[in-house]
C-alpha cells in the first residue's frame, strides 16, 4: 500500500475493506451475462480487482443487472436485492436497464431500472466490453471512498417511492417470500 493512503485507510477502515471485497451476486438477467464468464475467469480475471461471483445474495454486495429485465425477472431481482446485506451496490450493465434500450417499446420489459431499485452506476453500451466492468469497478471504489455509493440508504429513505413503482408493474408480487397473495390461476 502507498504510504500516503495509510491516513485515509485509518480514517475509514470499513470503506477500505468494502472497496476491495466486492462480491457480485451470480444473477443472470439478460444477454449481458455473456460478458461475465470472461470477466471472472482467466482472460480478464476480475479477482485482481477484488470482484468475485457469489452464488447466494446473502453473501454478496455487488449486484450487476446484466441486460434487459423482463417483468418476471424484476420480481426475482427485487427479492434478491432485499436479501442482500448492507452495504450493497447496484450497477446497471448495458443500455436496456438505462432506458429500455432496443426493448423501449416492448410490453414485457421494464424501461427505467432506477424507478424500482436505487442504482449506483451505469455501464452504457450494447454490449459493453469486459474492460467497461473494470472501469465501473474502479469508479465504484472512488464513490465508496467519497461516500457517494449510498444507494442502499436511499432505498430505505425513499422506500415508499420504490415500493409504489414496484407495485405498479408487479401488483401480485408478495411483500416477502412465502406471503400468500390472491392467486389468479398462475401455475408454473
Amino acid at each position, binding site marked *: 500500500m502507498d504510504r500516503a493512503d495509510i491516513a485515509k485507510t485509518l480514517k475509514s477502515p470499513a470503506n477500505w475493506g468494502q472497496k476491495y471485497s466486492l462480491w457480485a451476486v451470480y444473477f443472470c438477467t439478460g444477454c449481458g451475462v455473456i460478458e461475465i464468464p470472461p470477466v471472472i475467469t482467466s482472460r480478464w480475471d476480475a479477482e485482481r480487482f477484488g470482484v468475485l461471483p457469489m452464488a447466494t445474495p446473502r453473501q454478496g454486495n455487488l449486484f450487476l443487472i446484466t441486460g434487459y429485465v423482463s417483468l*418476471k425477472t424484476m420480481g426475482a431481482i427485487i427479492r434478491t436485492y432485499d436479501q442482500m446485506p448492507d452495504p450493497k451496490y447496484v450497477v446497471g450493465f448495458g443500455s436496456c436497464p438505462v432506458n429500455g434500450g432496443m426493448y423501449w417499446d*416492448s*410490453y414485457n420489459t421494464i424501461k*427505467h431500472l432506477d424507478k424500482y431499485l436505487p442504482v449506483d452506476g451505469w455501464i452504457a453500451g450494447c454490449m459493453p466490453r469486459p474492460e467497461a466492468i473494470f472501469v465501473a469497478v474502479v469508479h465504484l471504489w472512488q464513490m465508496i471512498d467519497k461516500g457517494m455509493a449510498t444507494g442502499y440508504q436511499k432505498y430505505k429513505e425513499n422506500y415508499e417511492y420504490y415500493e409504489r413503482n414496484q407495485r405498479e408493474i*408487479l401488483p*401480485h408480487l408478495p411483500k416477502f417470500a412465502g406471503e400468500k397473495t390472491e392467486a*389468479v*390461476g398462475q*401455475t408454473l
Partner: protein
Amino acid sequence: MMREQEIKKAIEKSTDGATVTVLKKGRILVTVPAAAAVSTLICLKAVGFEHLSAISCTDWLEQGELELVYHLWSYQDKVHLMLKTRLARENPQTVTAIPVFPHTQTYEREIHEMYGVHFEGNPRLTPFLLEHWEGPPPMRRDFQMRDYVKEKFGVEERIS
C-alpha cells in the same frame, strides 16, 4: 428429388384437400384445412417425419386469419416439411396434437398465450411466460403495443 415426390404422393393419397408443393431438394410445403391438420400429422409421422421441431403462428391481419405452421423433420430422408393451416382470427380454435407429438403441449401453451388460439384437448393452457397478463394476446398485430407500454410503464418527460 425422388424421395420428395414419393412423400408428396403419399400425402395426397391419404389426405383430402391437401396441397403439396416440393419447393426444392429437402423442402416440402403442405397446406391443409384446419380440421385435417392432426390427421395429416399422423400420416406424416408414419411416412418418417418423426421430429416436430416447432409450431409457429403468424397473424395475417388483412385476411383475418391466423396461420399455424408445424415444422417437421425426417431423419431418414433429411427433409424439412412445413405443414401450414389457417384458422379464423375471431375465436380461433383447433385440435391439439398432443396424442401424436406429446411435446407440442408447450408450443400450444405458448401460442395460446401469445395469440389466443384455443387448442381443444390440451390440458394445460395456463399462463406461461407472461407475468399476470390481463391485456389481449400481445403478439397479435392489432395489439397496440406502444399505448400499452405508455400506460403500463409510464412516459418519461423529455428533457430539452
